[in-house]
């Protein structure tokens, strides 16, 4: 008995995530509408996009899942194209890339469903589980799911479309795609790994952990080198998906090692980070969208000083920056803390090689956290602080009321996830319990909501509420103390060694990330351009100079462009073959016949190395001479 829809706890949890992510976005979108040239195209696809995401997470059968999944891909693809006439070239390219990548994943999902339903796509998840258990090659199913969902979630090496697609879309859509749509893929991972594919061998968990750690590091490193604020945020989505996958991979590893409590804890951490990333990433994209709306440029180097004209945008962006940098007491810190605690639980593993390997993942996550702080100091500091770097920034004003309402509502979601973390963790526990896992909420909160414990023996403890209260109290006390002192304030010029400060002498985003870019030069391989207009032929004296640095992502350069080059190479040789004269065609047929005869003898009749070598030589010589021809 299967239904088109099903509403179990996990579905409702993710439906809740989509609603939390969409409602503030609706307000923001309403305010953003004046910026959009094709409003009805936008409205229709926007509504269909949200409904189809809700459809995916509540789908009860393979058919409805695939239907809504494809609808979600197509509507988001159309939404990217909403503002296509503004920058037609980049937008069209981004949309095409997205369309290809999402269907690349869809093919594997379709294959997966055809296998686990034996072609009857109306089968429910319980039926699929039975068929998957009986299937002889579970690893094939694992890889099909991996390719299908990771290409949507944006995990390395299927992440390359994110930094193109997210900047090209209108800002509310970027917020929805990055904040909510990627989480739908995470839903798929939870749903199909925990029910259909379960149980799994240890190696799958290790692979997911490695992919997660690599995504986290690569995402944050490319975010640091980015000048386009929305591409920067898109790269951070890759990083955060990596953190979620680290949690999920740890859960898989612990489960394979029969440590159910730690495993449930790691899954809870992954779910919590999924929610947190939805909240702060949507807020960051809305903030970036407001800045873009006012300054008409995505280039971070053209901003500066916007906190004075756009205080609401700046302060909500600051809240989200603190949260995404995993600084206490925000919600981002809590989920990253849980992920760290899950990894520290690796000391309970008996397998020595695994026990020694997991600290490397801890290293990767810690480096990611450190670099994320650097990146968001850059993103916030260069955008909102200092002097205006361009005329566009000087003319920026605070955005309209609806957009502000959207941002403040989303900031409310961030704060709610921080203050009501125990309640949310209770919901995650319930969702996992419904999937047959242990509900670890009572172990995380053994003595009430004030303290959050790690489930590992002698693990860590944190008390988010007490930390928040303490920070507020101490800051308040310091502020009050200063009020009591009655300090006067005087404005003066910034000290610049006697010169006047100007927008050109303050630090740029490129300069800010300079040391880190130089340290990771082996990864970035930046193309640097330095032009100087020299004065009167003096090599060292110049009054104008221009410095530009461009970083092409490694994966795009090697994996994707490499694949493109390989395809070109093969098609060149196919072209050469296809344009032979007729005698060579005859030679080809002769060679194919030889190949068939020899192969038949080898595989079906008998095999000896001597005849194999002889036949190989005959084949190679005849191919060389008859088909390719002699060297001119």
């Amino acid at each position: 008995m299967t239904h088109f829809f099903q509403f179990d706890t996990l579905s409702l949890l993710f439906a809740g995530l989509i609603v939390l992510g969409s409602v503030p976005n609706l307000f923001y979108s309403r305010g953003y509408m004046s910026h959009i040239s094709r409003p009805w195209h936008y409205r229709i696809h926007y509504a269909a996009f949200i409904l189809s995401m809700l459809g995916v997470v509540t789908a009860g059968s393979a058919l409805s899942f695939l239907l809504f999944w494809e609808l979600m891909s197509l509507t988001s693809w159309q939404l990217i194209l909403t503002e296509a006439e503004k920058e037609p070239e980049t937008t069209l390219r981004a949309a095409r890339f997205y369309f290809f990548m999402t269907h690349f994943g869809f093919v594997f999902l379709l294959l997966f469903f055809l296998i686990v339903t034996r072609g009857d796509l109306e089968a429910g998840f319980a039926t699929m589980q039975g068929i998957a258990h009986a299937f002889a090659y579970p690893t094939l199913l694992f890889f099909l799911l991996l390719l299908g969902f990771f290409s949507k979630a944006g995990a390395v090496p299927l992440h390359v479309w994110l930094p193109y697609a997210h900047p090209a879309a209108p800002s509310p859509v970027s917020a929805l795609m990055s904040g909510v749509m990627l989480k739908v893929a995470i839903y798929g991972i939870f749903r199909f790994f925990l029910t259909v594919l379960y149980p799994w061998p240890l190696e799958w968990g290790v692979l997911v952990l490695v992919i997660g750690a690599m995504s986290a590091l690569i995402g944050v490193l490319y975010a640091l080198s980015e000048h386009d604020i929305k591409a920067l945020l898109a790269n951070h989505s890759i990083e955060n998906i990596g953190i979620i996958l680290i949690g999920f991979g740890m859960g898989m590893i612990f489960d394979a090692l029969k440590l159910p409590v730690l495993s449930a804890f790691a899954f809870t951490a992954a779910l919590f980070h999924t929610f947190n990333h939805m909240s702060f990433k949507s807020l960051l994209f809305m903030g970036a969208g407001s800045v873009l709306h006012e300054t008409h440029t995505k280039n971070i180097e053209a901003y500066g000083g916007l906190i004075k004209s756009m205080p609401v945008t700046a302060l909500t962006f600051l809240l989200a920056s603190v949260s995404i940098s995993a600084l206490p007491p925000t919600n981002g810190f809590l989920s990253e803390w849980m992920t760290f605690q899950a990894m520290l639980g690796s000391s309970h593993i008996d397998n020595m090689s695994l026990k020694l390997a997991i600290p490397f993942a801890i290293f990767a996550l810690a480096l990611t956290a450190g670099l994320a702080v650097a990146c968001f100091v850059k993103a916030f500091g260069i955008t909102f602080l200092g002097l205006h770097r361009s005329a566009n920034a000087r003319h920026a004003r605070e955005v309209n009321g609806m957009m502000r309402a959207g941002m403040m509502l989303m900031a409310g979601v961030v704060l709610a996830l921080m203050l009501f973390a125990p309640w949310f963790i209770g919901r995650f526990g319930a969702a996992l319990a419904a999937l047959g896992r242990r509900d670890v909420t009572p172990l995380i909160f053994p003595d009430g909501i004030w303290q959050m414990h790690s489930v590992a023996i002698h693990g860590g403890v944190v008390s988010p509420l007490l930390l928040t209260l303490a920070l507020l109290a101490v800051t308040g006390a310091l502020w009050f103390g200063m009020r009591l002192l009655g300090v006067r304030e005087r404005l003066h010029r910034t000290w610049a060694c006697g010169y006047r400060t100007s927008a050109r002498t303050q630090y740029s985003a490129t300069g800010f990330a300079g040391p880190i870019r130089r340290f990771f030069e082996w990864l970035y391989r930046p193309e640097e351009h330095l032009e100087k207009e020299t004065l009167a032929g003096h090599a060292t004296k110049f009054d104008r100079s221009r410095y530009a640095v461009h970083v092409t992502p490694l994966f795009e350069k090697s994996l994707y462009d490499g694949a493109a080059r390989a395809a070109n190479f093969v098609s060149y040789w196919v072209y050469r073959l296809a344009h032979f004269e007729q005698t060579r065609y005859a030679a080809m047929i002769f060679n194919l016949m030889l190949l068939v005869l020899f192969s038949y003898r080898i595989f079906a009749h008998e095999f000896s190395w001597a005849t194999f070598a002889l036949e190989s030589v005959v084949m190679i010589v005849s191919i060389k001479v008859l088909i390719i021809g002699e060297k001119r």
Partner: protein
Amino acid sequence: MSLYLLTVAVLLLIAPLLLGVIKALKMWLLFKRPLSLLQGYRDVAKLLHKENVVSEEASLITRVAPFLILSPLLIVLFFLPPAVQGAWYVSFVDAFTLTGLMALSTFFLMLLGLDSASSFGGIGASREAFIAALAEPAMVLTIFAVSMMAGDLGVGQAGVNLASRFPEKHMASYLFAAISFFILLIAENGRIPVDNPETHLELTMVHEAMILDIGGVWLAIVETAAAVKFVIFASLFASLFLPFGYGLAWPLALALFVGKLFGVALAVALVEVNTAKLRLFKVPNLLGIAIVFAFLSLITFYVLGA
């Protein structure tokens, strides 16, 4: 509880003194006439009477950041392991929270640097971001290794455990972790060879560059924050890696603890006198050493049990 509050008060009070001691020791070792040990207190007292001079370009951040730089560090001061046996300590906070709070302080320090539109502030913030990012993994791994030996991730509990049973069986990994932590102490507090706190030369400044454009009470707050951060690291080093004399009568134990803090200050002063400041792009090598030692500590603990 009264002992706990007393310890926190003592730590807060000697914070400016410790930095003064380092400076005086360095001058004395270099055959200069050392400055008064009370100079730190005098500076704070002087700054509290001054008006706040703020850059014209400064926004809300300059007016809020100093509080947010100091308050997380003040909170950390309350979460440190007990110096005296029987004293109350906070059991519900682990090492990640501590590093997180210190990172929060650094985050606002870097924003403060960027707020005045000065290129110095940018230099300082950019370098601080670079160093802090690379120090983070070393910190997390060292915490992990120490918590293995102490048998608990909670900072207070780890200090108590180490003091009550010294990890004789794990001396090798303990030592490696101590080396790593000492390097982090130097890097996080901006001492030579990572940063030179005495210079105002733009080629070398990190911490000083970020706070170049504030004055008065705000400068006093930020300077206090730097002193408090050093006390935090010194007392963490003292209670995690020098865990002896904990069971003495409380005045003696407290005096011994303060003595250990001065010992750490002496060690830092000796390192500062005997090394040159590293080029910024050599700093990762030093932090790399800390990372390697933290890994070594974990691996020795797991594989050799030593």
